């Protein structure tokens, strides 16, 4: 499975970006007229790149992800992705009327995978997230971490070259989250997917990403970017991760403080 996905990614060698966000603004009608949520965001995600979007509440990071996913339209600017991106939510969003395996098979079916292949592909994807044998499990029989892994497998079933993740591990306990960070890193490296990962957790951002993009709040603008040039595997307690996290946290605090002044 991993090799199939990797091939799919390599097949688009010509593409210079997995997502191109060009001068995107978004406003919503609010009580005091139009409320500007995103202001002139420009951001590229290269093929195979792992980018985290970091910001405090109200920076519009989830809004941006919805725009990239095509669930909403920007008020201005353009977004270009290579095919329909896969999207993972903070809630696992698995369908409770289907088993874990059937959730994945539905994703395959909606993509037009023939019936004969679906079962086997679903098993492969479950094995990839180390849940082989969980095909027949109901969603409510799985733990939070297992649900998010099935959700990841379902997202991978779309064989999209871009995976969007909206705080997917925020609701998990610390140790499960740490394990899933390792898993995500492993799968990302095996599949050579591009990932755009939204979080408000600075250490998570540094641990996972090749590039961290800090958004300011109200309206969301790209405040600063860091390239994370640390070798994998990383650990959440690594000194280098901690150092960069301190620096980014300071910057984030500065962004938040700005709002208290006026």
């Amino acid at each position: 499975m991993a090799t199939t996905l990797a091939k799919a990614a390599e097949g688009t060698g010509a593409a210079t970006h997995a997502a191109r966000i060009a001068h995107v603004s978004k406003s919503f009608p609010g009580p005091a007229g139009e409320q500007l949520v995103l202001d002139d965001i420009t951001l590229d995600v290269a093929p195979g790149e792992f980018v985290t979007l970091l910001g405090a509440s109200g920076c519009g990071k989830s809004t941006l992800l919805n725009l990239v996913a095509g669930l909403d339209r920007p008020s201005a600017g353009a977004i270009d992705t290579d095919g329909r991106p896969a999207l993972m939510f903070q809630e696992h969003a698995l369908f409770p009327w289907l088993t874990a395996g059937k959730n994945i098979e539905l994703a395959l079916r909606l993509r037009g995978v023939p019936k004969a292949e679906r079962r086997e592909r679903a098993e492969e994807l479950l094995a990839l997230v180390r849940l082989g044998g969980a095909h027949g499990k109901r969603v409510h029989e799985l733990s939070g971490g297992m649900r998010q892994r099935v959700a990841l497998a379902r997202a991978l079933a779309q064989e999209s070259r871009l995976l969007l993740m909206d705080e997917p591990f925020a609701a998990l306990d610390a140790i499960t989250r740490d394990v899933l960070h390792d898993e995500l890193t492993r799968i990302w490296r095996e599949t050579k997917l591009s990932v755009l990962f939204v979080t408000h957790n600075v250490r998570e951002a540094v641990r996972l990403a090749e590039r961290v993009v800090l958004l300011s709040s109200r309206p969301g603008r790209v405040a600063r970017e860091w390239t994370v040039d640390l070798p994998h595997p990383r650990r959440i307690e690594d000194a280098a991760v901690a150092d960069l996290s301190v620096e980014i946290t300071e910057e984030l605090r500065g962004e938040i403080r700005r709002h208290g002044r006026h």
Partner: protein
Amino acid sequence: MAGTDTASAKPARDPGDLAGLEAGLDALETAHPGRRTPWRRTLTQKVLPPAVAVLLVLAVWQGLVSFGIVDDPTKLPAPADVWHVVRDAWLEGTLLGYIWTSVSRGLLGFCMALVIGTPLGLLVARVRFVRAAIGPILSGLQSLPSVAWVPPAVIWLGLNDSMMYAVILLGAVPSIANGLVSGVDQVPPVFLRAGRTLGATGLKGTWHITLPAALPGYVAGLKQGWAFSWRSLMAAEIIASFPDLGVGLGQLLENGRNASDMAMVFEAILLILTVGIAIDLLVFSPLERWVLRSRGLLVRS
């Protein structure tokens, strides 16, 4: 690759071993499905209480007759008299005929209501104009006693089976449609978003996401729809009794009243109640429990 296998195969040789750690977490955090309730507990908790309640009602009833508190058998027959009437009807072979006449009408009418109410509900739930146009009327119809439809149905259709079916439909279709509408309204938006990112839009989205997600509300609507079908049918049978129609439970009740035979009236009432409860217990409650249990929504008591 099952979680527990991996854990036992690699006994914490490497504390940093991700697979082992993950298998351990999975094993610790997975909810173990509870065992089946032992039959003895089912008996004491589910069967015994209603049985006691029924016996208590029978005792009070018998007491009212025995102690002469109500000593007019045309007002209150003894439980034994009612039992004799039921037994005689059984021995004469007419009892099942009464029941079947009504049940076959009720179920056929319900099935027709299902076929009409389901697309109607879907239309109201999904098409904004239709919802604004007939949504309020549909919920309003639920509070209209279906007995009100009997006189117009008799005038329009005459004293025949189609009149009965018309009354059943007018009673049950709004319930079924409304159940589906509220089921669709309560679908968590995250399922719809997830469905859209997977490519389930339009009819595909309705079939793969909206309908299965709305199933609990829909089944609740079916359950209520059956209750309404049965009630409407009884109203129709009582009011519009006509020899050519065949004797159902409603006509039996009406015949008892005409003959001032209180035991027969009680027989009919008890049969109507029993059939209504039996269909609910045999068909709709298991269906509802299955839907809820498979989604982990049923809390084991």
